């Protein structure tokens, strides 16, 4: 008994302390694009947009042999700002990257988050997607002009449905539209829904006047004739929706595109940063990634390093100016 107790304690201590490091495989070499132990953080829940981007990127990078075993994990909360503050706290960690997008830029501002994207190391912008303005097939509005005409008359009577909380992309797009049409953004009756699914039901059932969401989300419903697309928000018409005019050509000066990209913790060395950037450059060139983009209906918007950083700053300014008008 007397001997067994210290032995048990010793055994337990050895197990819990030495077990984990001995069990982790040290098989990866740290060369080329290989980053052993690389992890992708997803700042929203499984199934969400950033989640799909991160998991697709991780799988494609593995399939293309760029690096093994990228671990994808979710840290949802407050529109991505919980994940962001964790990322910023991992100063100098070159084995962590976070998928993010315009929604995080908005959430940082509308939540008054203490850490902003300026505190991160921008790596790459990957994809972009326009928003569409849609109504149900039996809606009285046949064209964007009819809709905006009615909207101008009584903004309160035409509720706008979007798939993101205030500050998110589906909220910003109708606000910019209102601005361009001469409607005070404050009078817009915006109703946030939990993602595109619940919103779709409300549009189909004519509960909201019109809906704003990503193109990819409703492509099928539009093709099946359940939804009518009145306009797209980007600079050019969308390949799959040639019939839908842009807002700009309809006379409303809006140029809005949602995008997704990757940022890394602050304080990376030159080498760490180059390595991550190179991984995404090679991923971008791989046939696997091209195929995935095709399947998901994402548009290529590859942009790296400094340029992506400048782009982030510009987006931030735009979000701030819109939210300021709303008094948020």
């Amino acid at each position: 008994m007397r001997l067994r107790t210290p032995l048990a304690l010793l055994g337990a201590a050895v197990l819990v302390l030495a077990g984990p490091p001995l069990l982790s495989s040290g098989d990866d070499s740290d060369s080329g694009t290989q980053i052993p132990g690389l992890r992708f953080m997803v700042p929203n829940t499984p199934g969400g947009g950033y989640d799909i981007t991160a998991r697709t990127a991780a799988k494609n990078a593995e399939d293309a042999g760029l690096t093994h075993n990228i671990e994808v994990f979710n840290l949802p909360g407050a529109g991505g700002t919980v994940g962001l503050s964790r990322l910023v706290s991992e100063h100098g960690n070159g084995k962590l990257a976070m998928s993010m997008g315009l929604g995080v830029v908005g959430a940082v501002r509308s939540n008054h988050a203490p850490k902003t994207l300026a505190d991160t190391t921008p790596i790459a912008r990957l994809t972009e997607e326009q928003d569409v303005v849609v109504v149900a097939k039996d809606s009285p509005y046949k064209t964007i002009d009819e809709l905006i005409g009615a909207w101008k008359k009584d903004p309160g009577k035409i509720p706008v449905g979007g798939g993101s909380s205030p500050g998110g992309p589906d909220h910003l797009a109708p606000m910019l539209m209102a601005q361009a049409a001469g409607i005070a953004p404050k009078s817009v009756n915006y109703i946030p829904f939990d993602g595109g699914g619940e919103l779709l039901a409300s549009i189909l059932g004519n509960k909201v006047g019109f809906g704003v969401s990503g193109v990819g989300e409703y492509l099928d419903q539009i093709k099946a004739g359940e939804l009518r697309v009145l306009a797209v928000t980007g600079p050019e018409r969308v390949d799959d929706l040639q019939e839908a005019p842009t807002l700009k050509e309809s006379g409303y000066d809006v140029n809005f595109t949602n995008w997704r990209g990757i940022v890394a913790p602050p304080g990376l060395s030159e080498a760490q940063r180059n390595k991550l950037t190179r991984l995404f450059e090679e991923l971008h060139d791989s046939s696997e990634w091209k195929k995935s983009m095709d399947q998901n209906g994402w548009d290529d918007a590859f942009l790296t390093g400094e340029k992506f950083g400048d782009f982030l700053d510009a987006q931030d300014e735009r979000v701030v100016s819109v939210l300021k008008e709303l008094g948020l």
Partner: protein
Amino acid sequence: MNALNSLMDGFGTALTPVNLLWAALGVLLGTAIGVLPGIGPAMAVALLLPVTYGLDPVAAFIMFAGIYYGAMFGGSTTSILLNTPGESAAVVAAMEGNPMAKAGRGAQALAAAAIGHFAGGMIGTTLLVALAPTVADLAVDIGAPDYFAIMVLAFIAVTSVLGSSRVRGLASLLIGLTIGLVGLDQMTGQQRLTFGSLQLADGVDVVIVAVGLFAIGEALWVAAHLRRGGAEPIPVGRPWLGRADVKRTWKSWLRGPFIGFPFGAIPAGGAEIPTFLSYVTEKRLSKHKDEWGKGAIEGVAGPESAASASAAGTLVSMLTLGLPTTAVAAVMLAAFQQYGIQPGPLLFEREPELVWGLIASLFVGMVLLLALNLPLAPVWAKLLRIPRPYLYAGIMFFAAVGAYAVGGEVVDLVILLVIGLIGFGMRRYGLPILPAVIGVILGPNAEQQLRRALQISDGSVSGLVDTPFSVTVYAVIALLLAWPLLKRLVVRGRSRTDA
């Protein structure tokens, strides 16, 4: 009949030996992972997504169906045995299931849950085959005022679970509603009761509340009053459902799906509210009211059946509208997209083999689930025979793993402990736990639908009653409220004539 033919073709696809193997593997993996703390079906499906990458789409989705149902059942297992629900749909199962397990009837509770899942899944999937297009059209017409009316009904139903002391039940409900308020306001993004903390911005997860109040609260309460010395291990009892059990529960199994399925199919339905409504209904209809709260088997059978049918309902709107109504559906939608398949109005025409194969494999998965898990129920139930200190230490350990694994945040553990201490205090002063959990579930939902309805009507209160559905629900509520009064009048009238 066209659907029937297609379904037969689907069975042809699902019943090939290879696909049958994938289905069985899915059920096993799903159950094994669903049992783990902190991993609900959505997480399980997301984690196992990579496993299916190498398969062709049909095999992958057949395996998925197995994982989904398996994970749901696994979640109920921990709920019943350890009082630690792994996801919100399994919260109600702990209510009667855990007392049953403590009384040595764990195997029966698990069997009632397994058969409930089987019955709910079978009936739900049958309804899916028969009604998919119709239900999908109707679901779209349900809007915010209708949801709010249902929430009002649910709040009325809460009064039946307030317990013997109304004021203490109300206190518990209000504690739940207060916890539900924490977080960013869904409509405007205002911070409420977050005290500037980002970690609180998304509110406190229902599962954390349930695990804190049930598991941690109970562990602490037991610690304060542990029966010293003569603690016998929990008896295992008979492994199977007796005839009396079946007699009590068969109606519950059959009723559950008709509550669960419609809720699954509507866009903001989910499984929490139908499981709760099923619980309340069973309690109302039960002939053994004295057993409620101490392990009434109907309270496991009905809600579990409703949960499973609600999962089938979820698939209706996902397959026909491309509309993910739950987190699991969202993950499955993502999986469809990985294969370049877009669920939606065109899916049935474009990919008939896949869809009908998937539906057929839902039936197959259900049979496998029952065949695999019914014999295992007594084995699982033996888990409770381990000595008390290890049992409660294990419950605390698993609760902590669950809370931490989800987000990797230490704050979640602290929140869990605080809620556990609240649960302890509630036990000491006789505040029932159930209303608090219901408050956390219903409160935020009801508020969101109320405000959404008012926004749609641009602030006019008439917007709450401008649909036939909502008017009907309010009429039902009025009738329910007036019923005791009417009954008294009738009785009084009768006694007067008698005298």
